[in-house]
């Protein structure tokens, strides 16, 4: 029972007349769409609107005489709802760039619509690596992370430390399938073996039945190819059924700091996960968090929020350089041409297939005794350098990279 589309309009910066006239209808309109009411609402949700607003402020749009407006919408994790919102945005509301969009099934649908309307799509929330693979478009940039990077980080680390037989618990939609596929490839490449898989409906509540199947497989590692409350419930119930005590280990292939917060360190301790950003990694991130959290009920930013900030900032730079936001493909081309540089992700690049390149980190969740303050949850196990973090350009099968 979710509510109908809720639109939150936030006028952010008011510019002065003549300069802004070069942008379509005088205003750069950013549409942040994600799950604002369901299982992914904390890790993206209104927080992504907050992050986008902070990017516009830090860019200094008002000072530069650029008029930027941000609107938000709830796609309820449904591709049909998301498609309708985006069509209305692009056709009626004159939105120039769609941002965030977790839930890969929705993101893949949106990517196609944005391409046909020649606007810009900056993905932070969705994970499927297909967005820069076979389904890449000249209008889409995949910013924060993807299933290949997660598999490469967590999967490889676990296989190398002896976890060589796997059973997957997979969310039954585009994201889960992509994450399972990419992780299985990493496991097999490193000499491991996949013993089986079970696909659960999305979103689910009771995972005990699937966990028993995983237990019966005798695999050393149970790979959770799901996210949000599905992951939280899987981990919670696995501990209840004594699965980890029986010698099997869980691999949360995609988990966010909000999930760890919901689980509590007692249950979450020792989990290994791959992410591209953590609030307590350096001073710049801590400073960002200090500004962000009070605007978002005290919730600390996830890598998705940070990605939205970084992507919107780079978009505005490209539009400023082009002095136009009319041609979506041209803006994306400019974004690929310009190196990225911001306080949260440092320096990076956007590749020809639309993949944003930066380092990834392998984190381990702290024990309750190691955590000194609220939200002090991760320690860094390894840094995966930018050139190894993402799928090599040639292997993705993106038609844009034919040369």
């Amino acid at each position, binding site marked *: *029972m*979710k*509510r109908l589309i809720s639109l939150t309009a936030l006028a952010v910066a008011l510019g002065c007349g003549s300069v802004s006239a070069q942008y379509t209808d005088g205003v750069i309109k950013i549409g942040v769409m994600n799950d604002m*009411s*369901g*299982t*992914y*609402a*904390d*890790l993206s*949700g209104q927080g992504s609107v907050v992050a986008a607003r902070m990017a516009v402020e830090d860019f200094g749009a008002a000072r530069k005489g650029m008029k930027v407006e941000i609107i938000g919408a709830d796609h309820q994790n449904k591709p049909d709802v998301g498609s309708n919102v985006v069509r209305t945005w692009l056709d009626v509301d004159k939105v120039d760039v769609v941002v965030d969009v977790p839930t890969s099934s929705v993101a893949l649908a949106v990517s196609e619509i944005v391409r046909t309307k020649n606007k810009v799509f900056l993905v932070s929330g969705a994970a499927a690596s297909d967005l820069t693979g076979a389904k890449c478009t000249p209008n889409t940039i995949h910013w924060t992370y993807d299933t290949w990077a997660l598999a490469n980080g967590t999967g490889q680390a676990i296989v190398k430390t002896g976890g060589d037989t796997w059973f997957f618990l997979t969310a*039954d939609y585009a994201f889960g399938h992509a994450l399972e596929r990419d992780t299985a490839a990493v496991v097999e490449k490193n000499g491991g073996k996949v013993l089986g898989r*079970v*696909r*659960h*409906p999305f*979103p*689910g*509540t*009771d995972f*005990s*039945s*699937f966990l*028993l*199947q995983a*237990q*019966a497989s005798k695999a050393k590692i149970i790979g959770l190819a799901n996210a*949000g*409350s599905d992951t*939280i*419930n899987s981990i*919670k*119930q696995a501990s*209840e*059924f*004594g699965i980890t005590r*029986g010698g099997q280990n869980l691999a949360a292939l995609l988990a966010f700091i*909000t*999930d760890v*917060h*919901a*689980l*509590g360190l*007692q*249950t979450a301790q020792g989990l290994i996960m791959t992410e591209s950003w953590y609030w307590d990694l350096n001073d710049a991130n801590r400073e960002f968090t200090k500004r962000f959290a009070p605007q978002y*009920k005290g*919730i600390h930013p996830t890598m998705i929020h940070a990605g939205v900030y970084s992507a919107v900032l780079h978009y505005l730079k490209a539009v400023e350089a082009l002095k136009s936001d009319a041609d979506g493909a041209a803006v994306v081309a400019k974004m690929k041409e310009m190196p990225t540089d911001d306080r949260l992700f440092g320096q990076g690049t956007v590749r020809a297939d639309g993949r944003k390149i930066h380092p990834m980190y392998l984190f381990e969740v702290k024990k309750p005794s190691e955590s000194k303050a609220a939200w002090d949850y991760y320690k860094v196990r390894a840094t995966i350098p930018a050139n190894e973090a993402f799928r090599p350009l040639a292997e993705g099968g993106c038609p844009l990279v034919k040369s």
Partner: protein
Amino acid sequence: MFDVFGISSQALFGQLLIGLINGSFYALLSLGLAVIFGMLNIINFAHGAQYMVGAFTAYFLLQYAGLGYWWALALAPLIVGLIGIAIEQLFLQWLYKLDHLYGLLLTFGLALILEGVFRNYFGSSGLPYSVPPSLQGGQNLGFMFLPNYRAWVVVFSLVVCFTTWFVIERTRLGAYLRAGTENPTLVRAFGINVPRMITLTYGFGVALAALAGVMAAPIYNVSPQMGANLIIVVFAVVVIGVMGSIMGAIVTGFGLGIIEGLTKVFFPEASNTVIFVIMAIVLLIRPAGLFGRTA
């Protein structure tokens, strides 16, 4: 051990047991719905939200009053039941004479408001609540590891279900209740306060939802949408059983839990839909529900 359709009997027994556990939640929730519909003729769409509020109340009691699971089991249904009585007094009592649709719309609206308010203050990821120390651990049954807490859930909900059935179908109080819905004017003539009885019945139905919420808190995450995920399934259970039938709700609740559990083994992708397929079939063949008596 023998095999059934390629699944070892060991796995099968485990899945049957898990189906039974999930079924006890369906039974407990659909029981509350059936009581409310049977006695008040209100389709209580806020049932899922009240279940969620029950789980949150358990969390609040622990967090702010230091009262653990056992206290919550007694206090949360009481608190949420009182809220239910307030809802009945403020809104529902004006709707009994109107079409079912008005009660449905009102409670649906209440559910959305409750969920929205909780999401606004507590976010959607949920809050941790752990299994009480006395029920931690589990038994190795040979074919599976049964957590003590899950065993407790099955036993306790069976007791609650049977007691409710007994009170309504077999005692004098239950007879008053049933007579009161059948012909309120006549029952009032015997000096029984029918409106108060109906108010208390609604409070009891809501308390059952809250009780299920407390029992769910250690298993599922305490989150604002936990009720929304479950309520549609529970409505299907009630429709299959037959709207308003107490025994129908209990038996179908457990039965469908088992069927859903088996689907998770043989065709996991369909486990969210199987209950609705059964509902469609039942409505085609026996429109009055499995336990319904066609007039």
